């Protein structure tokens, strides 16, 4: 059975029921609209509006879901032994995310957050975290084109507070 998803720019995507279910948000909407896998009429007569996702981003989300639709539902361990979040990004996912510009990656992350697709959300979080890791604050600002709005006095205060973290 197929489900119709409509993006903010009025593009209709027809996807497999299983793919649609991968998004917690879509899942909830289908439930609210009494759409069920066994009731073809309910699926045909309804479409799910997704006002926060554009056509271009939706296409990427569906591509990711297609690849992962047969994944075992894995219990994502929230923390490793030392209490730090860990998540392994598969090689396919790395290759998949490589093709996006950073702006698109952020849009994709926004969509994964809105649609509640945990695997994709974590993939992107880990990817961006890896970009940040090991860089100094000015390198981070430069890399992401962040305009630093902190005054020198504020920076000094933060440095003082975090002094024993620096070399």
């Amino acid at each position: 059975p197929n489900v119709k998803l409509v993006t903010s720019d009025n593009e209709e995507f027809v996807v497999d029921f299983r793919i649609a279910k991968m998004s917690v948000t879509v899942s909830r909407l289908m439930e609210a609209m009494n759409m069920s896998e066994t009731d073809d009429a309910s699926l045909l007569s309804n479409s799910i509006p997704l006002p926060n996702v554009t056509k271009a981003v939706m296409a990427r989300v569906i591509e990711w879901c297609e690849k992962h639709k047969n994944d075992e539902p894995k219990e994502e361990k929230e923390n490793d032994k030392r209490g730090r979040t860990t998540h392994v990004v598969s090689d396919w996912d790395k290759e998949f995310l490589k093709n996006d510009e950073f702006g698109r990656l952020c849009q994709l992350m926004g969509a994964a957050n809105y649609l509640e697709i945990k695997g994709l959300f974590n993939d992107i979080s880990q990817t961006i975290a890896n970009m940040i890791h090991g860089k100094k604050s000015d390198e981070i600002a430069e890399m992401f084109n962040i305009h630093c709005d902190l005054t020198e006095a504020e920076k000094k205060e933060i440095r003082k507070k975090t002094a024993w973290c620096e070399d």
Partner: protein
Amino acid sequence: MQPLNEGGKEHANSLENNLRGVECSLGDKDYISHLPDLCLLQIFRFLKKRDLFNVMLASRRLGSLTSCHGLDRWDGGILTLVQIERGFGFEIGIASDEYPFNTDREMTSYQYTIEWNEEEKGFVEKRTRNGNPLRGCGSPVDFPIPSPFFANLKEILREHEARIIVIDKFRFDGLLFSLLLPLFTGHRVDRLILSGVVSQGITDDQRRSFTQFINALGVKDLNLEFSPSLNALLTEQFLKKLRLTDLYTNTNLKEAQTHLFRAEQSMIPILTLYSNLESSCVIVHADWVITLIIEHMKTVEESVDCSSTWFLALEGNLTHFTIDYQLRGSGYTHQRGGLLMSESTSTMAVLHSTQRDDRKFIRVQFSRKNPPKYSPLW
């Protein structure tokens, strides 16, 4: 340089592979600052403390999120609370962030003391970074712990995680633990070591607030080895309420004589949960000690690391007859050299019994029957 072992190398490679991430073109706009809070927080969850500090300096919006509860932690700190000569102090030592590329950083420590100054008739606070370790002083202080001590401790614990707590030379009282408890909200403490802590007799209230403290912090390993007067903590209720896997109390025989805890057979399900249990004041009976040991061996069967030790006082006579009687139908056999094992399982135990000053003790060494083989370096 030779790699230590191939497995380690492989691990490092896969780790590096995972960390290399994605190089994508970054464009010329500030996209990251426009991500919703939830997204940024999720990204920050994958970062180390030091990276978070760098993010903090990048902009106000990003910085404000890094101080969210749950992110602002430095892992694996060792916190020591000390009574010093005319006051109190604490020290937190934090080892290097365990990030693979940054493993050789030295320990950083922070000390705080608050002391009564007779000349100024007031308390003097002192804070140092990487200063001399605080030395405890056993002579009692005749005033309660001043409140700035708790305020400063709270501040430091908000920023840094205490994984091990050492309490040194304090007087044991329930109030201390009730006051400390709220400061550790959200912390997971593995080990609690009470060293040189003295008690003048333990009340049920004290025992209750101490138990509450241990369980709320998630302590698994309690060490009372250097606080013999705390042997008096051990009662059936106390052991039943705790959720420990390791317990060490003073095994100095003379000191341990002052308080003895005679465990009933009904305690078997509680005692089997301990990996390490070393206490000369806990007495088990020869009539059921073997049953207890076998029960423990069954519980550790699945665990990877089951090498651990028990040291307990023994009542009654442990003879071949009593051992065989308890082994019947268990599938375990008793062999020469005090070896206890079964055909079907991979755990074994070695028993030693000793006798000192009219008292009998039993030491049990648990281990794997076939320890994992280490491949040679070359």
